[in-house]
């Protein structure tokens, strides 16, 4: 199953992925439109600093989003039965119609991939942009730090 990976050495911490993700999950699907929406769309990927600015020549950061785990703790913890593996794609998905916003998923996700939608009390996370051919963050990343591939391909790349 394809997943999104971040190659730290290529990440510039430019946050293009965050913007693209928020826009892709907005009503209007573009950044300008998204900014005018009543509820600010939230990014499901977060650029996290490894070394703060200034401590190194170059900032090191990692873009963190859902890993679509083999043994998803979020699915196991979900009290409403609203997180499950899609049988066709194998992706871990949140069913917003079931989610009650208890944040049991945030309690257990080991990478912190679940984002709160404060207004609606619902859990959001990476869904690989089902309406797009390639997830928006991958397209937006200017350095190719983010890749969408099979785990084996990623392992090869790192050799």
């Amino acid at each position: 199953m394809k997943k999104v990976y971040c190659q730290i050495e290529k990440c510039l911490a430019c946050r293009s992925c965050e913007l693209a993700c928020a826009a892709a999950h907005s009503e209007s699907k573009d950044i300008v439109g998204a900014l005018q929406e009543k509820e600010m769309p939230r990014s499901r990927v977060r650029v996290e600093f490894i070394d703060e600015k200034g401590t190194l020549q170059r900032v090191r950061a990692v873009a963190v989003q859902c890993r679509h785990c083999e043994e998803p703790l979020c699915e196991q913890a979900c009290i409403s039965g609203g997180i499950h593996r899609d049988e066709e794609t194998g992706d871990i998905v949140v069913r917003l119609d079931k989610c009650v916003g208890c944040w049991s998923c945030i309690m257990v996700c080991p990478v912190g991939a679940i984002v709160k939608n404060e207004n609606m009390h619902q859990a959001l996370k990476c869904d690989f942009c089902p309406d797009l051919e390639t997830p928006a963050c991958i397209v937006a990343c200017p350095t190719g730090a983010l890749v969408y591939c099979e785990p084996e391909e990623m392992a090869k790349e790192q050799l």
Partner: protein
Amino acid sequence: MNILIIGNSAAGTAAIESIRKHDRQSSITQLSDEAQPLYSRCLLTYYLSGSIDREKLLYREEGFHKKMGVDLHTGPGFRVVDLNPAQRRVTCDNGRTFYYDKLLIATGASPKVPDNLPFDKGIFVLRHLADVEEIKQYLRDVGAKRAVVSGGGLVGIKSAAALNECGLHTTLAISSQQVLSQVLDYDAAQIIGRQLRENNIEILQPAGITEIISRDNRLKGVKTDQGRELDCDVLIVAKGVAPNVRLAKAAGIGVRRGIVIDSFMQTDHENIYAAGDVAEAFDMAIEDYTINALWTCAVQQGRIAGLNMAGKKTSYNDIISMNSFNVYDISIISFGVTSPKDESEYSVLTLNQAERNIYKKIVIDRDNHIKGIILLGKIASAGVLLSLIQRRVDVSVFKDELLSDKFNYGTLVKYGVEKE
């Protein structure tokens, strides 16, 4: 192989799912005395308040048991009344018997009720869907205006908030000095107490209910041990739960407070497993056996029991209490030991911004392992912190960063805990 599961809730369901990942062959029979379809107990107060409808209570899609190849029998008649380990047989209230090769006892817990509690109308516990249906009906029938909830634990608070949302004037009577004494420390509990009061829930503490005032067998009010008299139409008793161990005890299975299980979720009988609210297991934070009567813990234990029943020998040593809930706008997550008896044995980090409804606390032991956490108001890093607890990571090097809002997965990469 014949697998038998008693109980159709968190632990039983998780067991079914993990068994079926590895074993499509064995027959699985499941018995439950609750007639309802599989629902989430944790959502009952959401249903009480009307914020979700009945359908949303369902924990799995319709047809789940069929898809999993489970022969499910539900209803009062299928209450298991006898377990005979020598013959590997259980007997139900309706006389039906079932034989097993492997058995999972996932009978959960029942609300504790004071011995002298009368059976007057208007007095309820809240554990099963049937309880909530009764409460809802009663509220309508009598046009209830005032409610008292006895007990300041999770169920008590959730019930009080739900009744308040239904428009009832609600009073929470707590016998200890603070709300959520099992989960939060005193300072965090103060914030929650204030939040409840600001949302018009009256809190009496410490206050026990000593007397029921009723007329024509119908509740009219209660008296507290402080001598206060409160008018009310409904009383919900939420004084904690006791594990449903009678069956196991009578069968000679090892029981202390709960059914004692090892790291494979196995009882002292080789082919009998237990999981969930009924089970007493080793807790990595307390470093002793305890019952963690929580949904997520029940799922984890059920999952491990299932794996072992399916022949995938798996030990699990990471059991720890974990809670996540909201009290109005405040999100709270807690893990493990949050108020150690002797704080001098630990290094305790706290951040108290009570005026902003933010509080964080991290309890670290002498080996630099985290043993307990409270996150109130800011919960984003909860799962990352939990992973540190469960992997028993030495946090000495980045201890100073644990309370920061900037602490996240990236921090773990920085310190080489995660490689990426």
